[in-house]
């Protein structure tokens, strides 16, 4: 009995020591990503992050948000100080060239060659807006053409049957509406110096007249006598003098101009096309359902198409392969089709918030078409995006600085403190000075 027990123990001992142990399961190393955004729908972003982390449990995303108006200043301060620099972040065609030239963000196609193929599915203006020196620096967060908005209900009350096709016609319609006592200031824009969209509104107005800002070598052409830029400034000045454009426009950002539209205090405006979703939301506007988009008044109806995108900072490649892999998974999930080709985040922004997109396959998504159809003429929106939208001219490392200067200088011309020609000359001089430096 004793011998049998000893034999069993011996067998057990041998078994335990001869069977090779199971290989230890190697947990993927934990990677953290600092994600910086401007403040918009933070709850949704957090939820998107949560869902992303469920798919990629080894990636820990830390979200930081800053006010839209102060976003570029704050991000620059973070990059320069280096202590709170982002890994992945929102960027815009406005700032791309400046940030890329400074080496703060890196070209994605250098690290993720698959981007080149993916970019073929994006709208042309969006790809151009995310490119610098032939390299792609982002995946689109959202993209939109700038569109002309009008309140159909007030137009009908004024006996006007169709939206204006030219800028002169717009002025005439505004005068009629004012004379009939329907609205005191029928036109209003978000031209605040703090509003990055203000230059997009202005350039859209220039494009719609068939104008250009720069030639192919980035030399200013807007300072030529009678240029579209000069005509646009003169038009805005005349609209203000005629009392049909809200004088607060010079201090309004896009949200405030939109609020005036939603409150029925304004009839015409220019904004990103997807803003129409909130205008036609009955919870947000008393005239919901009556806000429409039209082709930009003018001879060519061209407009600006802009893109805001997810960029990757230069500190990610320095952190090694794991960080790069985590960043790619993040970028693909948030700005690309994702692992299952479902465009999880882009689609959500479109369905829940009506945000425009550059990912063209989504124009065939039945849910999106049905959702957008509730607030916008979808074929017209598509036509504006594909046929009339152009990327902003002059996107260079000094564009952002020139833009800031232009906002104040244009306001001086709107107010009649300087002539449109003087403003054009000053803008050209500043452009050349920044370029030289």
């Amino acid at each position, binding site marked *: 009995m004793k011998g049998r027990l000893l034999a069993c123990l011996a067998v057990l001992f041998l078994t335990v020591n001869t069977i090779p142990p199971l290989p230890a399961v190697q947990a993927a190393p934990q990677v953290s990503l600092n994600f910086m955004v401007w403040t918009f729908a933070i709850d949704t972003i957090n939820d998107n992050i949560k869902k992303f982390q469920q798919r990629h449990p080894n990636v820990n995303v830390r979200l930081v948000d800053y006010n839209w108006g102060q976003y570029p*200043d704050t991000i620059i301060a973070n990059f320069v100080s280096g202590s709170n620099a982002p890994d992945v972040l929102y960027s815009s065609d406005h700032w791309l060239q400046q940030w890329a030239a400074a080496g703060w963000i890196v070209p994605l196609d250098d690290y993720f060659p698959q981007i080149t193929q993916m970019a073929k599915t994006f709208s042309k203006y969006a790809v151009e807006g995310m490119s610098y020196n032939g390299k792609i620096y982002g995946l689109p967060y959202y993209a939109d053409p700038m569109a002309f908005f009008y309140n159909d209900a007030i137009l009908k009350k004024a006996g006007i049957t169709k939206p204006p096709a030219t800028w002169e016609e717009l002025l005439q319609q505004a005068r009629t509406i004012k004379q009939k006592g329907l609205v005191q200031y029928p036109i209003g824009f978000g031209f605040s110096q703090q509003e990055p969209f203000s230059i997009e509104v202005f350039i859209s107005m220039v494009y719609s007249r068939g104008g250009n800002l720069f030639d192919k070598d980035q030399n200013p052409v807007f300072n030529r006598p009678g240029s579209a830029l000069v005509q646009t400034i003169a038009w805005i000045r005349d609209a203000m003098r005629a009392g049909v454009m809200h004088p607060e426009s010079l*201090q309004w950002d896009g949200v405030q101009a939109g609020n005036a539209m939603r409150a029925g*205090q304004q009839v015409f405006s220019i904004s990103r096309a997807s803003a129409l979703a909130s205008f036609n939301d009955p919870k947000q506007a008393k005239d919901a359902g009556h806000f429409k988009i039209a082709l930009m008044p003018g001879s060519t109806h061209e407009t600006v198409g802009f893109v805001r995108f997810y960029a990757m900072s230069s500190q990610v490649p320095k952190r090694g392969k794991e960080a790069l892999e985590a960043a790619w998974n993040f970028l693909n999930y948030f700005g690309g089709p994702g692992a299952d080709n479902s465009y999880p985040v882009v689609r959500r922004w479109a369905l829940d918030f009506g945000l425009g997109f550059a990912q063209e396959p989504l124009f065939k998504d039945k849910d999106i078409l049905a959702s957008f159809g509730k607030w916008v003429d979808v074929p017209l929106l598509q036509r504006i995006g594909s046929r009339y939208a152009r990327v902003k001219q002059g996107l260079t490392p000094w564009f952002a600085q020139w833009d800031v200067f232009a906002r*104040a200088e244009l*306001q001086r011309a709107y107010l009649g403190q300087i002539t449109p020609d003087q403003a054009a000359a000053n803008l050209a001089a500043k452009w050349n000075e920044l370029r030289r430096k």
Partner: protein
Amino acid sequence: MGEVSKSVSASAQRLGRLSRPRRAVSAYPYLSILPALLIIALVSVYPLFFALDLSLHRNVLTEPLSHPYVGLQNFAETFGSYYFLRALGRTLQFTALIIAGTICYGVAVGLYLNRPGRLPGIARVAILLPWAIPTVMAAIIWRWIFNGTYGALNAVLAEAGLISSYVSWLGSPTLAPLTLVVTHIWKWGPLAAIMCLATLQVIPRDLYEAATIDGGGRWAAFRHITLPFLRPTVLLLLILETIGGFVTFDLIYVLTGGGPADATTMLAWFAYAEIFRFLNLGKGAAMAFIIAAITFGLALIYVRLLRSEEMYAG
């Protein structure tokens, strides 16, 4: 005599014994203040020299690898800039208005608060509320009040029949600088009033009684008794408001953003824009030195005036 010499030699011996510890004691005060000096050097002296170094180099954030020495070029470009001179002119205008406004407000309200009665007593506490509110909060409050579409000021004026349509206070290049002046006086006037009140309360009552006996009216008493006593306080306010005018930034940031056009672009805002919008640290630092030099120069003039007043009073 012998007692004295003994005493002297004993003292000398004592001194001799104490000579080593005395050296240690003499180092003690310096060691005591060393931590404070180090902190001051870190937060004041080092940044000052760093800023001076910045101002002598071309330092643009988008060119992180190139910071060539440019000497006084940043200063020369600043002084030669049309936009800088416009900002300087607007700063001087704003400063003159807030000096006049705050001092008038301070003296008038101080005189009212110095009166006996329950209402001035309550007002003495209530008047300090705007001063206790952070400047950014004050600016946000006034931005709502001045709003051209739904602002309280327009509503009140329209209700009173003083305006037929809403006025764009912040959108007008003439009115926008005045909104800054009003907000500044609302915010800082109470401090001026309390300072004036403190001075008014030490004026002997019998001086006013003597003036009344001599047949002097209220204006004569104010001019010959109250004002001379208030003069040092007013000069102090002059210095504070001058510095305040030149460094005003937060109000502009929240209320007008420097606009419309450049109607409210003053020196501090101009320097901010140069650094954070145009990303030119070198020129921004040069501007900061220029602003500091102007305010320092004006403060020196005022201090000299204040000293002469003290001598006069003495």
